[in-house]
């Protein structure tokens, strides 16, 4: 019963993307931007190397804007239309509702990501890349997207205004990306002890994603993304329970 309800919610959420233009707009823009980043900004051809590093290295920045846009409606829209009252008085638990929405959004991102396969075909046509590294890149990208979605979903649960949800999620995601950026780390490294600098860097998407996308699959990087996702999903449940009480 418990599992099947999650499945029912997941199905409804996922089909909701395709019932509206959201799915098509998102997928087209995602593919268009990742194409520009890879071939134009990333100098895919000029590098003359058979790998997808330029493709993956822009994913954090792509997700910075696109994932909050995808996640902003998850709860804010339900609050605005009042359907949250319907959803939460059906015989489902709050955690089932949270997981159903999150997993559907994540599955949708996975669909969008998998549609970048022409890039993979291109690089295989042009040279002989290490497909293991590329697979690792996809895995890392999907994990990062999951963490960003969990952030966006739980912030969406705090407001009925989708614009606020978008902007705040974008800033929080930016913090998680930038904490590994030299700009931020340099600021701390001048005076803070190395342990603190390392701790800040260890919270970054970039630090963990770079390693995976280069084909170095470290369990710690995977655990980082999964635990970050779990933390924000837990926050999502807590936010919903909290907002119900007032």
């Amino acid at each position, binding site marked *: 019963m418990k599992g099947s309800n999650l499945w029912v919610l997941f199905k*409804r959420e996922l089909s909701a993307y395709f019932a509206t233009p959201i799915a098509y707009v998102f997928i087209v823009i995602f593919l268009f931007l990742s194409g520009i980043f890879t071939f134009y900004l990333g100098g895919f051809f000029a590098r003359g190397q058979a790998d997808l590093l330029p493709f993956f290295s822009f994913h954090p920045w792509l997700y910075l804007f696109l994932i909050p846009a995808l996640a902003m409606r998850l709860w804010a829209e339900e609050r605005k239309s009042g*359907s949250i009252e319907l959803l939460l008085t*059906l015989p489902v638990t709050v955690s089932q509702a949270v997981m159903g929405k999150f997993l559907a959004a994540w599955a949708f991102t996975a669909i969008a990501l998998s549609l970048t396969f022409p890039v993979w075909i291109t690089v295989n046509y042009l040279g002989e890349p290490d497909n293991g590294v590329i697979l690792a890149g996809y895995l890392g990208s999907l994990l990062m997207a999951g963490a960003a979605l969990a952030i966006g979903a739980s912030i969406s649960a705090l407001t009925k205004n989708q614009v606020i949800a978008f902007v705040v999620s974008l800033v929080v995601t930016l913090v998680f990306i930038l904490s590994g950026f030299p700009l931020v780390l340099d600021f701390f490294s001048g005076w803070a002890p190395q342990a603190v600098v390392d701790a800040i860097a260890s919270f970054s998407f970039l630090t963990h994603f770079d390693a995976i996308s280069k084909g170095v699959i470290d369990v710690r990087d995977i655990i980082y993304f999964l635990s970050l996702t779990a933390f924000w999903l837990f926050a999502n449940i807590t936010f919903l329970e909290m907002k119900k009480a007032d």
Partner: protein
Amino acid sequence: MQAMIKIDRLRKDFGRFTAVDDISFEVNQGEVLGFLGPNGAGKSTTMKMITGYLPPSSGSVTVAGYDVAEHPLEVKRRIGYLPEGAPAYPDMTPADFLDFIAEVRGFRGKEKQRRVQDTVRQVSLEDVLHQPIDTLSKGFKRRVGLAQAILHDPQVLIMDEPTDGLDPNQKHEVRTLIGNMAREKVIILSTHILEEVHAVCSRAIIIARGRIVADGTPEELEAKSQWHNSVTLTLSPGKDSPEQVREQLEAMPGVARLETLPGHDNRLRYQLYPHAARPILADVSRMVHERQWEVEEMRQNQGRLDDVFRAITA
């Protein structure tokens, strides 16, 4: 027999504001309970606590023997709920939406199809089954909301303003639907429309500022009106002067107070209020007969729910 819904010292605070202030009541099977009250009186908040959407600040709600706070899912399975404004997923069609509701309610396969079909027929949604809910008229949207609430044939049906914004025909349909389901369920509905209470409710509770100020059958509530059993009397001018008529009426033992109403063409109009709402029509009639007054109008007033409502919630 245990009451189907038992509400015990229920209270809800929003910051410093107390929306629901220590409410207790029970509802039994077969009762259709109307919640009346001005806007912001705490009707919706009470309903949200019964359905488990809002946790109470204190007190408890028990539905079919299950405490809402301890067994929310058991309670939610037994309740059908139409929230205020009948929210649904606007991008879905009624067919998809009801299919989703049926699956969440645990129905699969043939049983699911049968439930959806029956419900669609009950609320007459056949013509719009495949249009996005977004594009439907208010009346159809309300029916979609009703459909999701009754699909699983719940023991308890809770509806927040089920006929708000509907035209008179649609209101009648919804009331008929409620009437048909009344016997085997517990129904709680909130409304602003007092005639609706007469039409569908076997009991009414009036809430004001988060407290219950009246609880009884619609007839019992009407009896609280100052007009209840008062007599309106209109006489043609006759041999007795207006002063004499007035004196004699006031001298009647059953009459507590007499009010002179404006009359046309020298007609004499009075409103006679009895002591403790005891019927005085027979006495007045006898007096009129003895004095051979010419009566144009003589009637006993029931007292309207509106008056009671205004008097106790103002």
